[in-house]
């Protein structure tokens, strides 16, 4: 049996936290879309805030601000920055 390591995704990040993208678990068009916004391995992101009921998250990547639904944010695996 393999040891299960807990995967951190963007939804685990509280407001104000910054992180580095490790892997995209999206497929096909969604993946392309995320990539075209600069969300790719090694990219640095910062969580800016959440919409009511945490349905949507706003992040900052580079100098751009991006809104993502929770479902999409969960597909972005991250590493918390120290």
């Amino acid at each position, binding site marked *: 049996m393999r040891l299960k390591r807990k995967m951190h995704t963007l939804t685990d990040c509280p407001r104000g936290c910054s992180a580095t993208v490790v892997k995209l678990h999206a497929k096909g068009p969604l993946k392309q*879309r995320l990539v075209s916004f600069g969300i790719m391995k090694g990219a640095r992101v910062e969580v800016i805030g959440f919409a009511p009921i945490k349905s949507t998250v706003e992040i900052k990547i580079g100098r751009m601000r991006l*809104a993502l639904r929770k479902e999409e944010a969960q597909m972005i695996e991250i590493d918390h920055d120290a």
Partner: protein
Amino acid sequence: MMRETAPVCPVTENHIRIALVGQPNVGKSMLINAISNARLHVGNFSGVTVEKSEVFFDYNDFHFTIVDLPGTYAFTDYSIEERVTHDFLTNEDYDLIINVVDSTNLDKNLQLTAELMTMNKKMVLALNMSDEAEREGIEIDAPYLSQLLNIPAVKVSAAAHTGIEKLIETVIDTYNQPMREPKLVFSEAVEEEIGIIERYLDEHHFKAAISNRNIAINLLQNEKKTYRTLHDLPLWTELQPQLIEADKHIETHHDTDDIKEVFAEEYAAFIRGVIAGTVHYREQASEKKSLTERVDDLLIHPVLGIPIFLFLMWGLFQLTFEIGNIPMEWIDSFFGWFGDVVGATISNEDIRSLVVDGVIAGVGAVVLFTPNIIILFIGIALLESTGYMSRVAFLLDGIFHKFGLHGQSFIPLVTGFGCSIPAYMSARILKNDSDRLLTLFIIGFMSCGARLPVYVLFTGAFFAPGIAGNVLFAIYIAGAVIGLIAAKVLKMTAFRGEDEPFVMEMPKYRMPSLKLVWHTVLTKTVMYLKKAGTFIAGASMLVWFLSNYPHSDSVALEYAPKIEAAAEQTEMEKLSAEAAAKQLEQSYLGRIGKTIEPLFEPIGLDWKLAVALQAGLAAKEVVVSTLGVLYSVSDEASETDSSLVGAIREHIPFASAVSFIVVIMLYLPCLAASVVFTREAGGIKYFFYLLLFTSATAYLLALIAYRLTLLITGASAVLPH
């Protein structure tokens, strides 16, 4: 050179066809405006330019055609917009690309630039928003950037009109010079594979218009066109296994199985290098909160955000009513006076009635609402151009998603409050077809500007001025809520399917440019007035004719002696009103109305209101003008209150008015909008679905509203009289 000696037709030889490409919201529309003084619509949310538009202009001896392509984040063909841009760039004939980038966000923007660099086209980089970059302390070394990429780069500001001439001259220079191949540098692993393929092509003396290195890059990133071209050549059999091998290599190196992702990462790394060398940030932006961040802290606050949005909308409708009503009296009395003046010059009784009661009354009734429309349009233009729209999409996505809609559906839906036609067109920003159709079906429930006159008329008739604005707001909210519920119903029945992801850029807040808001509002208002002058004048004449003919002599004969014999003034008035009503009832319009009346009786509408609704199928403005014509006929005698508002208050019971408003709110949009709907939805069958869907909803809810109002007010069900 002297102007007079210019050749008669300098056009054909020096014709430069330019494709304007950039990511959404980089200021492409505004740049075109600045270059050519064209009046395009400029908005501050992702994806205003959904259709490509062409602009022509001359500069020195050159004739320019600029094709403004829809903004696209990457060179893919996934959404409609991306497809338009992708197909144009790969298949159409053009001389040069102007790639517009946002100087304050180069790392993201250059990603697209890198993709364009493999297109083998002449290219000029327009570093737009340089004014803003300067304010934010971003220094770009344009000459060095241009040297690193081997693409001419010019700093411009579409807003401040700087660098525009230089841009055009650079375009002309680039056009005149031979093609320079852009410089892209990849990681060692990728460079190695590129080298292998390139050498293979060289050894086989392969020669094409573009360099073998460029071909190798395109082959490795699976670029369709290059693939197709080489596919049919003899060397393909040997080349293909090498390519597969190379791609596998690269993918392992990048720890992914997606070659597109590999290249995106490669470009990103390359761009990071370029930016490190050419861009200097004077102050650390992250330390101080930017204006956008501070405004966002409030406007998209998890608790306060939605109340603030609702408050802003409420304020807009208050303004629409309060300020809009001030000039209404002037306009009303102007048309009254105008009718009298014109009427006095016409001796023929029938023609006088046609002109005064038909055309002037009808058009006047519509023009009356111009101030309200202008305020509403200004409000929507401000929402669009400040960047607030995207915030609302962000705030509302959670709720919208529950109803089966997409946060970005909000943009067409709000546009729908102005006019359904641009709303239907802007639904194209939705990538997913079933999302888009769903949104198209409920846009009509967002009451468009043309329905505003009907609401203003009725709320004015039944409510005190103090609360009329609130009622107006409530009507709009009710329409929106019904729209949401309808969306849910449709999503659960007709439009089941995968949910579209929500990934949206939040543009920076910007002060709306007054000139642009003015242009937008002006264009829309002129359109509204033009419609009043042409279409509605025509419709008014038709309604006038149908309501005045045939003229019954028997009614006239019956009443003439009675009226003559009447002893008192009041009795005389009463009799002539009766006569007019009788005449109207047996007119063509009366007969049509009477035929369909049984259908409308259960919801408390008489034939006049039913006719007004039918007329509204042509255009919603016609509802008011029809009422104007219908009631000015029976109104002649009772001079107590000459205005339409008074007539409505007098003749229509409250419950019927409520029912009427509900139908207006929900039934089929106007003819022009229906045509656009059909086109955008992609087939006539959708029009019939829409007809059925909106009619059924309108009828059902009107019935409920009518009965409820009767119940609450304790009134009995009487039809209007």
